[in-house]
Protein backbone atom coordinates (compact mmCIF):
# COMPACT_ATOMS: atom_id res chain seq x y z
CA UNK A 1 0.00 0.00 0.00
CA UNK A 2 1.19 3.47 -0.84
CA UNK A 3 0.86 6.40 1.53
CA UNK A 4 -1.60 9.18 0.85
CA UNK A 5 1.28 11.58 0.32
CA UNK A 6 2.70 9.36 -2.40
CA UNK A 7 -0.68 9.09 -4.13
CA UNK A 8 -1.09 12.85 -4.17
CA UNK A 9 2.43 13.33 -5.47
CA UNK A 10 1.87 10.70 -8.15
CA UNK A 11 -1.39 12.18 -9.41
CA UNK A 12 -0.03 15.72 -9.44
CA UNK A 13 3.07 14.74 -11.42
CA UNK A 14 1.01 12.64 -13.82
CA UNK A 15 -1.44 15.47 -14.43
CA UNK A 16 1.33 17.99 -15.04
CA UNK A 17 3.12 15.72 -17.50
CA UNK A 18 0.02 14.89 -19.53
CA UNK A 19 -1.10 18.52 -19.42
CA UNK A 20 2.24 19.70 -20.75
CA UNK A 21 2.27 17.11 -23.52
CA UNK A 22 -1.26 17.96 -24.65
CA UNK A 23 -0.91 21.73 -24.54
CA UNK A 24 2.36 21.47 -26.48
CA UNK A 25 0.67 19.25 -29.03
CA UNK A 26 -2.28 21.63 -29.27
CA UNK A 27 -0.17 24.71 -29.92
CA UNK A 28 1.89 22.84 -32.49
CA UNK A 29 -1.11 21.62 -34.47
CA UNK A 30 -3.56 24.50 -34.02
CA UNK A 31 -2.45 26.69 -36.94
CA UNK A 32 -2.53 23.71 -39.31
CA UNK A 33 -5.92 22.60 -38.02
CA UNK A 34 -7.30 26.13 -38.41
CA UNK A 35 -6.10 26.33 -41.98
CA UNK A 36 -7.54 22.87 -42.66
CA UNK A 37 -10.92 23.92 -41.32
CA UNK A 38 -10.92 27.05 -43.49
CA UNK A 39 -9.92 25.13 -46.61
CA UNK A 40 -12.53 22.48 -45.84
CA UNK A 41 -15.29 25.09 -45.77
CA UNK A 42 -14.01 26.83 -48.88
CA UNK A 43 -13.86 23.58 -50.79
CA UNK A 44 -17.50 22.94 -49.87
CA UNK A 45 -18.43 26.36 -51.25
CA UNK A 46 -16.36 25.82 -54.40
CA UNK A 47 -17.89 22.43 -55.07
CA UNK A 48 -21.17 24.23 -55.80
CA UNK A 49 -19.48 25.83 -58.80
CA UNK A 50 -17.22 22.90 -59.64
CA UNK A 51 -18.37 22.86 -63.27
CA UNK A 52 -17.21 26.46 -63.72
CA UNK A 53 -13.74 26.11 -62.23
CA UNK A 54 -10.66 26.09 -64.42
CA UNK A 55 -9.55 22.76 -63.05
CA UNK A 56 -11.26 19.96 -61.09
CA UNK A 57 -11.64 20.79 -57.42
CA UNK A 58 -10.04 17.54 -56.27
CA UNK A 59 -6.86 18.46 -58.13
CA UNK A 60 -6.64 21.92 -56.63
CA UNK A 61 -4.13 22.26 -53.84
CA UNK A 62 -5.05 23.93 -50.56
CA UNK A 63 -3.08 27.03 -51.52
CA UNK A 64 -4.86 27.28 -54.85
CA UNK A 65 -8.19 27.16 -53.03
CA UNK A 66 -7.13 29.97 -50.70
CA UNK A 67 -5.73 31.89 -53.65
CA UNK A 68 -8.97 31.65 -55.60
CA UNK A 69 -10.88 32.94 -52.60
CA UNK A 70 -8.49 35.82 -52.14
CA UNK A 71 -8.55 36.93 -55.78
CA UNK A 72 -11.73 35.88 -57.51
CA UNK A 73 -14.29 35.69 -54.74
CA UNK A 74 -16.10 38.68 -53.37
CA UNK A 75 -17.70 38.17 -49.98
CA UNK A 76 -20.70 39.97 -48.57
CA UNK A 77 -22.87 39.64 -45.51
CA UNK A 78 -26.55 40.51 -45.92
CA UNK A 79 -29.30 41.19 -43.46
CA UNK A 80 -32.83 39.93 -43.93
CA UNK A 81 -33.87 43.14 -45.71
CA UNK A 82 -31.34 42.45 -48.42
CA UNK A 83 -28.92 45.17 -47.36
CA UNK A 84 -25.20 44.61 -47.27
CA UNK A 85 -23.86 44.83 -43.74
CA UNK A 86 -20.36 44.69 -42.39
CA UNK A 87 -18.47 41.42 -42.16
CA UNK A 88 -16.94 38.65 -44.17
CA UNK A 89 -19.16 35.86 -45.41
CA UNK A 90 -16.64 33.13 -44.61
CA UNK A 91 -16.63 34.11 -40.93
CA UNK A 92 -20.39 33.84 -40.66
CA UNK A 93 -21.66 30.66 -39.03
CA UNK A 94 -24.96 29.59 -40.55
CA UNK A 95 -25.53 27.29 -37.59
CA UNK A 96 -25.31 30.20 -35.16
CA UNK A 97 -27.49 32.45 -37.33
CA UNK A 98 -30.21 29.80 -37.52
CA UNK A 99 -30.64 30.06 -33.75
CA UNK A 100 -31.54 33.77 -33.93
CA UNK A 101 -35.06 35.04 -34.62
CA UNK A 102 -35.67 35.05 -38.36
CA UNK A 103 -35.65 38.85 -38.75
CA UNK A 104 -32.24 39.24 -37.07
CA UNK A 105 -30.34 36.67 -39.07
CA UNK A 106 -27.47 37.47 -41.38
CA UNK A 107 -26.79 35.72 -44.65
CA UNK A 108 -23.51 34.85 -46.37
CA UNK A 109 -23.08 35.71 -50.02
CA UNK A 110 -20.09 34.78 -52.16
CA UNK A 111 -19.74 36.33 -55.60
CA UNK A 112 -17.50 34.42 -57.96
CA UNK A 113 -16.05 36.24 -60.90
CA UNK A 114 -16.38 33.61 -63.62
CA UNK A 115 -15.84 33.76 -67.36
CA UNK A 116 -19.60 33.95 -67.94
CA UNK A 117 -20.27 36.76 -65.52
CA UNK A 118 -20.77 37.00 -61.79
CA UNK A 119 -22.05 33.93 -60.01
CA UNK A 120 -23.84 34.46 -56.70
CA UNK A 121 -23.29 31.64 -54.22
CA UNK A 122 -25.81 31.62 -51.39
CA UNK A 123 -25.91 29.54 -48.23
CA UNK A 124 -28.89 27.54 -47.05
CA UNK A 125 -29.36 25.76 -43.74
CA UNK A 126 -32.09 23.45 -42.50
CA UNK A 127 -33.09 20.15 -40.98
CA UNK A 128 -32.52 16.73 -42.48
CA UNK A 129 -33.91 13.50 -41.11
CA UNK A 130 -31.58 13.12 -38.12
CA UNK A 131 -29.74 16.38 -37.82
CA UNK A 132 -28.84 19.62 -39.54
CA UNK A 133 -28.18 19.86 -43.26
CA UNK A 134 -26.77 22.78 -45.18
CA UNK A 135 -25.64 23.65 -48.66
CA UNK A 136 -24.45 26.26 -51.10
CA UNK A 137 -26.42 27.15 -54.20
CA UNK A 138 -24.76 28.98 -57.07
CA UNK A 139 -26.99 31.21 -59.18
CA UNK A 140 -26.11 32.62 -62.59
CA UNK A 141 -26.04 36.37 -63.11
CA UNK A 142 -29.76 36.38 -63.98
CA UNK A 143 -30.32 35.37 -60.33
CA UNK A 144 -32.73 32.67 -61.51
CA UNK A 145 -30.85 29.81 -63.04
CA UNK A 146 -28.92 27.46 -60.80
CA UNK A 147 -25.30 27.03 -61.86
CA UNK A 148 -24.53 24.37 -59.28
CA UNK A 149 -25.15 23.17 -55.76
CA UNK A 150 -23.37 21.37 -52.98
CA UNK A 151 -24.75 19.87 -49.80
CA UNK A 152 -23.45 18.61 -46.52
CA UNK A 153 -25.00 17.13 -43.41
CA UNK A 154 -24.25 16.40 -39.81
CA UNK A 155 -25.73 12.96 -39.33
CA UNK A 156 -27.75 11.64 -42.24
CA UNK A 157 -27.74 7.88 -42.86
CA UNK A 158 -24.65 6.80 -44.82
CA UNK A 159 -25.63 5.34 -48.17
CA UNK A 160 -29.10 6.93 -48.01
CA UNK A 161 -29.56 10.52 -46.83
CA UNK A 162 -25.81 11.09 -46.72
CA UNK A 163 -25.79 10.69 -50.50
CA UNK A 164 -26.86 14.33 -50.79
CA UNK A 165 -23.19 14.98 -50.14
CA UNK A 166 -21.52 11.76 -51.32
CA UNK A 167 -23.30 11.24 -54.63
CA UNK A 168 -22.21 13.95 -57.09
CA UNK A 169 -25.18 13.04 -59.31
CA UNK A 170 -27.64 14.51 -56.81
CA UNK A 171 -26.19 18.01 -56.83
CA UNK A 172 -25.48 17.73 -60.57
CA UNK A 173 -29.23 17.46 -61.20
CA UNK A 174 -29.69 20.99 -59.83
CA UNK A 175 -27.71 22.60 -62.64
CA UNK A 176 -29.96 24.52 -65.04
CA UNK A 177 -33.04 24.49 -62.80
CA UNK A 178 -34.82 27.77 -62.26
CA UNK A 179 -36.00 29.21 -58.97
CA UNK A 180 -38.58 31.40 -60.71
CA UNK A 181 -41.47 30.47 -62.98
CA UNK A 182 -41.95 32.08 -66.36
CA UNK A 183 -43.98 34.92 -64.85
CA UNK A 184 -41.11 35.74 -62.51
CA UNK A 185 -42.80 34.36 -59.41
CA UNK A 186 -40.67 32.57 -56.82
CA UNK A 187 -41.10 28.79 -56.94
CA UNK A 188 -37.78 27.53 -55.56
CA UNK A 189 -36.49 24.09 -56.49
CA UNK A 190 -37.93 20.95 -54.98
CA UNK A 191 -36.61 17.45 -54.49
CA UNK A 192 -39.26 14.98 -55.65
CA UNK A 193 -39.74 11.23 -55.85
CA UNK A 194 -41.26 11.65 -59.30
CA UNK A 195 -40.30 14.66 -61.36
CA UNK A 196 -43.35 16.21 -63.02
CA UNK A 197 -41.99 19.70 -63.65
CA UNK A 198 -38.37 19.31 -64.81
CA UNK A 199 -37.66 23.05 -64.74
CA UNK A 200 -38.18 23.32 -60.96
CA UNK A 201 -37.85 19.77 -59.66
CA UNK A 202 -34.95 17.46 -58.98
CA UNK A 203 -34.89 13.67 -58.78
CA UNK A 204 -34.61 12.51 -55.15
CA UNK A 205 -32.45 9.71 -53.77
CA UNK A 206 -34.07 6.30 -53.40
CA UNK A 207 -34.58 5.49 -49.73
CA UNK A 208 -33.94 9.05 -48.61
CA UNK A 209 -37.37 10.65 -48.99
CA UNK A 210 -37.27 12.39 -45.62
CA UNK A 211 -33.83 13.87 -46.16
CA UNK A 212 -35.09 14.97 -49.59
CA UNK A 213 -38.07 16.68 -47.96
CA UNK A 214 -35.63 18.41 -45.62
CA UNK A 215 -33.61 19.66 -48.59
CA UNK A 216 -36.78 20.94 -50.25
CA UNK A 217 -37.86 22.81 -47.11
CA UNK A 218 -34.36 24.24 -46.70
CA UNK A 219 -34.30 25.48 -50.30
CA UNK A 220 -37.81 26.96 -50.34
CA UNK A 221 -37.14 28.91 -47.17
CA UNK A 222 -33.42 29.56 -47.64
CA UNK A 223 -33.37 30.92 -51.18
CA UNK A 224 -36.32 33.19 -50.35
CA UNK A 225 -34.18 35.04 -47.79
CA UNK A 226 -32.01 36.34 -50.62
CA UNK A 227 -34.81 37.59 -52.85
CA UNK A 228 -34.87 41.15 -51.40
CA UNK A 229 -31.15 41.48 -52.20
CA UNK A 230 -31.63 40.16 -55.74
CA UNK A 231 -34.55 42.54 -56.21
CA UNK A 232 -32.34 45.49 -55.27
CA UNK A 233 -29.42 44.37 -57.39
CA UNK A 234 -31.08 43.55 -60.67
CA UNK A 235 -28.83 43.68 -63.66
Amino acid at each position, binding site marked *: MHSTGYIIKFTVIMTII*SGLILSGM*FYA*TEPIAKKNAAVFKKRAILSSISSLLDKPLAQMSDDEVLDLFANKMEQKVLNMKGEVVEGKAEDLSMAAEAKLPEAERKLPLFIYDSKDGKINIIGVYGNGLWDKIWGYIALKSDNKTIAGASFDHKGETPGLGAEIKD*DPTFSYHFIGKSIMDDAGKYTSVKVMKKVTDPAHQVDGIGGATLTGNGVTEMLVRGIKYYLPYFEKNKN
Partner: protein
Amino acid sequence: MSGKEEKKPLFGPKEKRLLWDPINDNNPVTVQVLGVCSALAVTSLVYKSVVMAIAVIFVVAFSNLITSLIRNYIPSQVRMIAQLVIIATLVTIVELTLKAANYAIYKELSVFIGLIITNCIVMGRLEAFAMGNSPWRSFLDGIGNGLGYGVILIIVGIIRELFGKGTLFAGSPIQLNIIGKSNDLVHYWIDTSPGSMMSWYSNNGLLALPVSSLFLIGIIIWVQRGKNKKLVDVS
Protein backbone atom coordinates in the same frame (compact mmCIF):
# COMPACT_ATOMS: atom_id res chain seq x y z
CA MET B 1 7.17 -8.24 -9.62
CA SER B 2 9.48 -11.22 -10.12
CA GLY B 3 13.09 -10.25 -9.55
CA LYS B 4 14.66 -12.77 -11.91
CA GLU B 5 14.66 -11.78 -15.53
CA GLU B 6 15.67 -14.76 -17.61
CA LYS B 7 17.30 -14.38 -20.99
CA LYS B 8 14.48 -14.78 -23.44
CA PRO B 9 14.37 -14.28 -27.20
CA LEU B 10 12.96 -10.88 -28.11
CA PHE B 11 10.43 -12.37 -30.47
CA GLY B 12 9.93 -16.03 -29.51
CA PRO B 13 6.85 -18.26 -29.82
CA LYS B 14 5.30 -16.64 -26.74
CA GLU B 15 5.54 -13.17 -28.24
CA LYS B 16 4.15 -14.49 -31.48
CA ARG B 17 1.15 -15.81 -29.61
CA LEU B 18 0.62 -12.40 -28.01
CA LEU B 19 0.22 -10.98 -31.49
CA TRP B 20 -1.81 -13.75 -33.08
CA ASP B 21 -4.12 -14.88 -30.29
CA PRO B 22 -6.23 -11.71 -30.28
CA ILE B 23 -6.66 -11.92 -34.03
CA ASN B 24 -8.36 -15.30 -33.90
CA ASP B 25 -8.63 -17.44 -30.73
CA ASN B 26 -9.12 -14.52 -28.38
CA ASN B 27 -10.45 -11.80 -30.63
CA PRO B 28 -11.59 -8.81 -28.58
CA VAL B 29 -14.70 -8.23 -30.70
CA THR B 30 -15.93 -11.69 -31.67
CA VAL B 31 -14.78 -13.72 -28.65
CA GLN B 32 -14.69 -11.23 -25.79
CA VAL B 33 -17.44 -9.11 -27.38
CA LEU B 34 -15.77 -5.82 -26.44
CA GLY B 35 -15.64 -2.61 -28.45
CA VAL B 36 -18.82 -3.46 -30.32
CA CYS B 37 -20.26 0.05 -30.00
CA SER B 38 -17.68 1.66 -32.23
CA ALA B 39 -17.70 -1.38 -34.52
CA LEU B 40 -21.35 -0.61 -35.23
CA ALA B 41 -20.86 3.09 -35.74
CA VAL B 42 -17.79 3.57 -37.91
CA THR B 43 -18.00 0.58 -40.26
CA SER B 44 -20.23 2.15 -42.92
CA LEU B 45 -17.15 2.91 -45.01
CA VAL B 46 -13.92 0.94 -45.32
CA TYR B 47 -11.81 4.10 -45.20
CA LYS B 48 -13.34 5.11 -41.88
CA SER B 49 -12.83 1.58 -40.52
CA VAL B 50 -9.16 1.61 -41.52
CA VAL B 51 -8.47 4.99 -39.90
CA MET B 52 -10.34 3.94 -36.76
CA ALA B 53 -8.41 0.65 -36.65
CA ILE B 54 -5.07 2.47 -36.91
CA ALA B 55 -6.13 4.91 -34.19
CA VAL B 56 -7.13 2.10 -31.84
CA ILE B 57 -3.96 0.08 -32.54
CA PHE B 58 -1.90 3.16 -31.69
CA VAL B 59 -3.83 3.88 -28.50
CA VAL B 60 -3.87 0.29 -27.18
CA ALA B 61 -0.23 -0.36 -28.03
CA PHE B 62 1.15 2.81 -26.48
CA SER B 63 -1.14 2.91 -23.46
CA ASN B 64 -0.11 -0.70 -22.77
CA LEU B 65 3.55 0.26 -23.16
CA ILE B 66 3.36 3.34 -20.92
CA THR B 67 1.27 1.63 -18.27
CA SER B 68 3.64 -1.30 -18.20
CA LEU B 69 6.67 1.01 -17.89
CA ILE B 70 5.27 2.76 -14.83
CA ARG B 71 3.25 -0.16 -13.44
CA ASN B 72 5.42 -0.45 -10.33
CA TYR B 73 4.92 3.21 -9.48
CA ILE B 74 1.15 3.38 -9.95
CA PRO B 75 -0.56 3.28 -6.53
CA SER B 76 -3.21 0.56 -6.71
CA GLN B 77 -5.85 2.85 -5.16
CA VAL B 78 -5.76 5.24 -8.14
CA ARG B 79 -4.65 2.84 -10.86
CA MET B 80 -7.88 3.15 -12.86
CA ILE B 81 -7.61 6.93 -12.91
CA ALA B 82 -3.96 6.70 -13.89
CA GLN B 83 -4.87 4.35 -16.74
CA LEU B 84 -7.62 6.67 -17.87
CA VAL B 85 -5.29 9.65 -17.93
CA ILE B 86 -2.83 7.71 -20.09
CA ILE B 87 -5.57 6.61 -22.49
CA ALA B 88 -7.16 10.06 -22.67
CA THR B 89 -3.81 11.71 -23.35
CA LEU B 90 -3.09 9.31 -26.21
CA VAL B 91 -6.57 9.65 -27.68
CA THR B 92 -6.29 13.44 -27.64
CA ILE B 93 -2.93 13.16 -29.39
CA VAL B 94 -4.60 11.03 -32.09
CA GLU B 95 -7.43 13.54 -32.40
CA LEU B 96 -5.12 16.54 -32.75
CA THR B 97 -2.91 14.71 -35.25
CA LEU B 98 -5.87 13.70 -37.36
CA LYS B 99 -7.23 17.25 -37.31
CA ALA B 100 -3.95 18.52 -38.70
CA ALA B 101 -3.22 15.66 -41.08
CA ASN B 102 -6.61 14.93 -42.64
CA TYR B 103 -9.42 17.25 -41.69
CA ALA B 104 -12.06 15.55 -43.85
CA ILE B 105 -11.73 12.17 -42.16
CA TYR B 106 -11.57 13.88 -38.75
CA LYS B 107 -14.97 15.40 -39.55
CA GLU B 108 -16.30 12.03 -40.67
CA LEU B 109 -15.24 10.14 -37.56
CA SER B 110 -16.21 13.08 -35.33
CA VAL B 111 -16.96 11.87 -31.81
CA PHE B 112 -15.87 8.29 -32.35
CA ILE B 113 -12.18 9.13 -32.08
CA GLY B 114 -12.84 10.70 -28.69
CA LEU B 115 -14.89 7.70 -27.69
CA ILE B 116 -11.87 5.41 -27.99
CA ILE B 117 -11.29 6.51 -24.38
CA THR B 118 -14.33 4.49 -23.37
CA ASN B 119 -13.49 1.52 -25.59
CA CYS B 120 -13.45 -1.47 -23.23
CA ILE B 121 -10.66 -3.14 -25.18
CA VAL B 122 -8.16 -0.45 -24.18
CA MET B 123 -9.00 -0.33 -20.49
CA GLY B 124 -9.40 -4.11 -20.42
CA ARG B 125 -5.90 -4.74 -21.76
CA LEU B 126 -4.34 -2.30 -19.29
CA GLU B 127 -6.02 -3.96 -16.32
CA ALA B 128 -5.63 -7.54 -17.50
CA PHE B 129 -2.21 -7.43 -19.11
CA ALA B 130 -0.11 -4.30 -18.91
CA MET B 131 -0.32 -4.00 -15.11
CA GLY B 132 1.47 -7.34 -14.75
CA ASN B 133 3.74 -7.78 -17.74
CA SER B 134 6.94 -6.37 -19.16
CA PRO B 135 6.77 -3.33 -21.48
CA TRP B 136 7.81 -5.15 -24.66
CA ARG B 137 5.26 -7.93 -24.17
CA SER B 138 2.56 -5.42 -23.26
CA PHE B 139 3.32 -3.44 -26.40
CA LEU B 140 2.93 -6.59 -28.54
CA ASP B 141 -0.27 -7.49 -26.72
CA GLY B 142 -1.60 -4.03 -27.48
CA ILE B 143 -0.76 -4.29 -31.16
CA GLY B 144 -2.31 -7.77 -31.28
CA ASN B 145 -5.56 -6.63 -29.69
CA GLY B 146 -5.72 -3.52 -31.82
CA LEU B 147 -5.23 -5.68 -34.91
CA GLY B 148 -7.89 -8.14 -33.76
CA TYR B 149 -10.33 -5.27 -33.41
CA GLY B 150 -9.22 -3.68 -36.67
CA VAL B 151 -9.56 -6.88 -38.70
CA ILE B 152 -13.20 -7.28 -37.70
CA LEU B 153 -13.86 -3.59 -38.35
CA ILE B 154 -12.41 -3.82 -41.84
CA ILE B 155 -14.24 -7.05 -42.72
CA VAL B 156 -17.56 -5.53 -41.65
CA GLY B 157 -16.66 -2.29 -43.42
CA ILE B 158 -15.91 -4.04 -46.72
CA ILE B 159 -19.20 -5.97 -46.68
CA ARG B 160 -21.25 -2.92 -45.64
CA GLU B 161 -19.73 -0.52 -48.13
CA LEU B 162 -19.66 -2.91 -51.09
CA PHE B 163 -23.24 -4.12 -50.76
CA GLY B 164 -24.70 -1.03 -49.12
CA LYS B 165 -23.14 1.65 -51.28
CA GLY B 166 -21.47 -0.16 -54.18
CA THR B 167 -18.06 1.39 -53.59
CA LEU B 168 -14.86 0.60 -51.70
CA PHE B 169 -12.60 3.11 -49.93
CA ALA B 170 -15.05 5.93 -50.69
CA GLY B 171 -13.78 9.27 -49.45
CA SER B 172 -10.14 8.27 -49.79
CA PRO B 173 -7.89 9.09 -52.75
CA ILE B 174 -8.21 5.50 -54.03
CA GLN B 175 -12.00 5.30 -54.16
CA LEU B 176 -13.20 2.32 -56.21
CA ASN B 177 -16.66 2.48 -57.75
CA ILE B 178 -17.62 -1.18 -58.01
CA ILE B 179 -21.32 -1.50 -58.70
CA GLY B 180 -24.05 1.06 -59.35
CA LYS B 181 -25.73 3.22 -61.95
CA SER B 182 -23.08 4.79 -64.16
CA ASN B 183 -23.68 8.24 -65.57
CA ASP B 184 -21.69 11.15 -66.97
CA LEU B 185 -20.19 11.93 -63.58
CA VAL B 186 -19.58 8.57 -61.96
CA HIS B 187 -18.41 5.41 -63.65
CA TYR B 188 -18.95 2.02 -61.99
CA TRP B 189 -17.18 -1.20 -63.01
CA ILE B 190 -20.47 -3.06 -63.01
CA ASP B 191 -23.16 -0.87 -64.48
CA THR B 192 -26.69 -1.32 -63.15
CA SER B 193 -28.44 1.44 -65.08
CA PRO B 194 -31.76 0.50 -66.71
CA GLY B 195 -31.28 -1.60 -69.83
CA SER B 196 -27.98 -3.14 -68.76
CA MET B 197 -27.52 -6.79 -67.82
CA MET B 198 -27.29 -6.04 -64.10
CA SER B 199 -30.25 -3.67 -63.97
CA TRP B 200 -32.03 -5.95 -61.46
CA TYR B 201 -29.38 -5.20 -58.85
CA SER B 202 -29.75 -2.48 -56.29
CA ASN B 203 -27.78 -1.61 -53.17
CA ASN B 204 -29.02 -3.00 -49.89
CA GLY B 205 -30.14 -0.01 -47.83
CA LEU B 206 -30.13 -2.05 -44.62
CA LEU B 207 -26.37 -2.48 -44.84
CA ALA B 208 -25.99 1.29 -44.82
CA LEU B 209 -27.53 1.37 -41.34
CA PRO B 210 -25.47 0.68 -38.20
CA VAL B 211 -27.79 -2.15 -37.18
CA SER B 212 -26.53 -4.30 -40.06
CA SER B 213 -23.09 -4.55 -38.45
CA LEU B 214 -24.74 -6.27 -35.50
CA PHE B 215 -25.93 -9.02 -37.85
CA LEU B 216 -22.60 -9.13 -39.64
CA ILE B 217 -20.61 -9.43 -36.41
CA GLY B 218 -23.04 -12.18 -35.36
CA ILE B 219 -22.39 -14.04 -38.60
CA ILE B 220 -18.64 -13.60 -38.20
CA ILE B 221 -18.84 -15.05 -34.67
CA TRP B 222 -20.90 -17.95 -35.99
CA VAL B 223 -18.44 -18.74 -38.81
CA GLN B 224 -15.46 -18.37 -36.50
CA ARG B 225 -16.91 -20.76 -33.93
CA GLY B 226 -17.76 -23.23 -36.66
CA LYS B 227 -14.17 -23.24 -37.89
CA ASN B 228 -12.28 -22.90 -34.62
CA LYS B 229 -12.82 -25.93 -32.38
CA LYS B 230 -11.10 -24.20 -29.43
CA LEU B 231 -13.98 -21.78 -29.11
CA VAL B 232 -16.75 -24.37 -28.83
CA ASP B 233 -18.12 -24.78 -25.31
CA VAL B 234 -17.65 -28.33 -24.11
CA SER B 235 -20.45 -28.32 -21.57
